[in-house]
């Protein structure tokens, strides 16, 4: 990366704003953003699976706690959730070297916690909707084959629910990428944080923010393209026969 950047210096031709050091900053921001969003999405996805199954259960003690969780996280701004996680850890002053102190020393961890729980709440609802939309005939057929509830869940309901949830989940991924811009408010140098730094250093809002907007756009459309490809692969059976 450093070699590439020093080579880039010749092409920049003495540009006032986009120097080797600001480009390196944007690069670090890109790495931080992608890392934060990717890890939050993966853990959130893993959490949302059992949550969605619980949310679709008929037992009240399984269903309502998950409902309350998704309701609270979806009805309040992510910024507040981020602040609660960040200040919550920052002000407890745990002993040095403990697990809690890693949380309060590095804003990345509280941000990861808030983002993970937030995306888990949205994804749970997406999967719940997809599970509920399973056609009755499929369930009846599975029961007629003598499948138990858990086997039916594993073999019939979840595989088709995943496919139905795919387009909506793609939107959630893009939403999360955009929402992660607020990480810059809690001292994390993400893409938006890098853009803000460049703006305040050179007082050039247009190059600083338009460049970062383009980067986000490339990422968003990349994700969109990826999900389109996945849909083409996994939803073959829904395509019109020609």
């Amino acid at each position, binding site marked *: 990366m450093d070699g590439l950047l020093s080579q880039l210096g010749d092409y920049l031709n003495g540009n006032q704003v986009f120097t080797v050091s600001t480009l390196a900053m944007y690069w670090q921001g890109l790495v931080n953003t992608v890392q934060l969003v990717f890890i939050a999405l993966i853990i959130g996805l893993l959490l949302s699976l059992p949550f969605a199954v619980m949310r679709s259960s008929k037992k009240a003690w399984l269903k309502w706690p998950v409902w309350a969780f998704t309701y609270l996280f979806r009805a309040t701004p*992510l910024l507040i959730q981020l602040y609660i996680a960040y200040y919550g850890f920052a002000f407890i002053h745990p002993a040095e070297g403990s697990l809690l102190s890693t949380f309060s020393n590095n804003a990345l961890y509280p941000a990861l916690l808030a983002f993970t729980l937030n995306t888990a709440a949205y994804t749970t609802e997406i999967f719940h909707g997809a599970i509920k939309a399973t056609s009755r005939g499929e369930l009846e057929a599975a029961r007629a084959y003598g499948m138990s509830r858990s086997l039916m869940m594993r073999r019939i309901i979840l595989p088709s629910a995943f496919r139905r949830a795919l387009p909506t989940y793609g939107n959630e991924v893009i939403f999360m990428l955009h929402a992660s811009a607020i990480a*810059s408010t809690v001292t994390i140098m993400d893409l938006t944080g890098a853009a803000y730094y460049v703006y305040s250093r050179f007082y050039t809002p247009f190059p600083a923010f338009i460049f970062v907007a383009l980067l986000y756009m490339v990422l968003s459309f990349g994700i969109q393209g990826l999900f389109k490809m996945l849909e083409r692969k996994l939803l073959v059976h829904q395509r019109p026969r020609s």
Partner: protein
Amino acid sequence: MLPAWLDFMGYGPRLFIGGLLTLEVALLSLLIGLVLGLLAASAKLSRSAFLRAIGTAYTTLIRGVPDLVLMMLLFYGGQIGVNAVTDWLYSVSGGTIDMYININAFTAGSITIGFIIGAYMAETFRGAFLAVEKGQMEAAEAYGMRPLQTFWRIRFPLMMRHALPGIGNNWLVLLKMTALVSIIGLSDMVQVADEATRANHAPFLFLIPVALGYLIIAGLSEIVFQWLTRRYNTGVLEGDE
């Protein structure tokens, strides 16, 4: 005098005023979003390829860029941009057009949120317009109504029934988006709570009531939407269609 449980270490009144400001930003951006959404939906459904391209470019731009980045661009860049335009007008007109437009956090925030939600509204309205029966418009035309009359008397009220659930969802998205104006320095309830939290090292005392504030606003708007739904569903039998 406020009761003790609403005092919040003296921040109670400021939190309340911040809540009103949140509501103001939300309502103003809803208005901007509804107008832009109607315009963009009409552009996307129009026969002119040029207008369709503008509508598509608008919604694509919004889908690709984070709300906070747009808000910062408008807030930090808006003043420079507006000044450049007014300076240019001043020099072109030889000094007759002399004006100064101030871009503060309130205008920048409301315009950005309205602009973003307008793109969401455009999709909602587009679907709703397509759901209105063509026969209704043909009947209006047969009665000799002018295009604008047909729009406001027939097309719009019939479309609203299909658009209301979408508008309700967009309103909730918008309401949460208003929290971002605290980042560009507007004293909404999030900003006041953030300041109070940092001054008092009390992470939950201020932030959780503000979160509840959002829940309350969302709950109250639910009632308004139920009333609107009843109004625009007049004459529709459930399970019809």
